[in-house]
């Protein structure tokens, strides 16, 4: 093995490790826990609120099984991941989205279940730290 292939192997190993890492971390906060604990586990307790992170969730959701949520982090720089936390759910962390390429626009829209009226928080992991945005959604018919 020459020097070049040794470096390649090293880098390859590092990439494999880093792509595996989220799973071990995820197991910690994807389960049943309190929303604030989940947020602290994701951010390490350090986060700021910003109007640049836009979270769109309906004020009133009639059907709690299909609540459309949109997170728009295009105004932020260096966004790596987005987390969505539904505070009143037994498993508060509903979704994690990682942006793997510069071609991927830091925007995501998807649907989640909500058990009852709840606060919804989006967390964006940027190169400069964690940014959060919250909104409130009322649910008339729970879906959890």
């Amino acid at each position: 093995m020459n020097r070049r292939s040794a470096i390649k192997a090293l880098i390859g190993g590092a990439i494999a490790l880093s792509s595996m890492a989220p799973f071990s971390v995820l197991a910690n906060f994807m389960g049943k826990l309190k929303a604030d604990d989940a947020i602290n586990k994701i951010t390490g307790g350090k986060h700021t609120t910003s109007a640049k992170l836009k979270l769109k969730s309906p004020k009133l959701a009639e059907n709690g099984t299909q609540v459309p949520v949109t997170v728009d982090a295009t105004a932020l720089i260096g966004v790596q991941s987005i987390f969505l936390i539904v505070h009143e759910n037994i498993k508060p962390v509903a979704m994690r989205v990682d942006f793997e390429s510069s071609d991927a626009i830091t925007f995501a829209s998807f649907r989640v279940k909500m058990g009852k009226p709840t606060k919804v928080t989006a967390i964006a992991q940027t190169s400069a730290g964690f940014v959060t945005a919250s909104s409130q959604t009322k649910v008339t018919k729970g879906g959890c």
Partner: protein
Amino acid sequence: MAKKIKARAKIKNGLIEVKYKVVHPMETGRRKDKSGQLVAEDYINFIKISKNGKDMFTLVPNSTASKDPYFFFKLKGIKGDAITLSWISNTGEKNSSTTKVK
């Protein structure tokens, strides 16, 4: 059970807009069936979206993502790019589908 992936990828305002509907029950493990038995947990817990074989988005949904999860993403690209979505569920089931950008 047929677990289809419905996909639509179109160029709009210079960006590819991808819409996905993955047909999947997304059982939380808390719902009871007609006979009162709990339905076992069965949900997608890993999704990868790639363009021309290059990773773009990695999604980790929890069981609280909706039934038949629906996703809407935007990415840079051109007409004819191949967008692939593949998912794995907590039971180990897998599926994937590729669409051409129109």
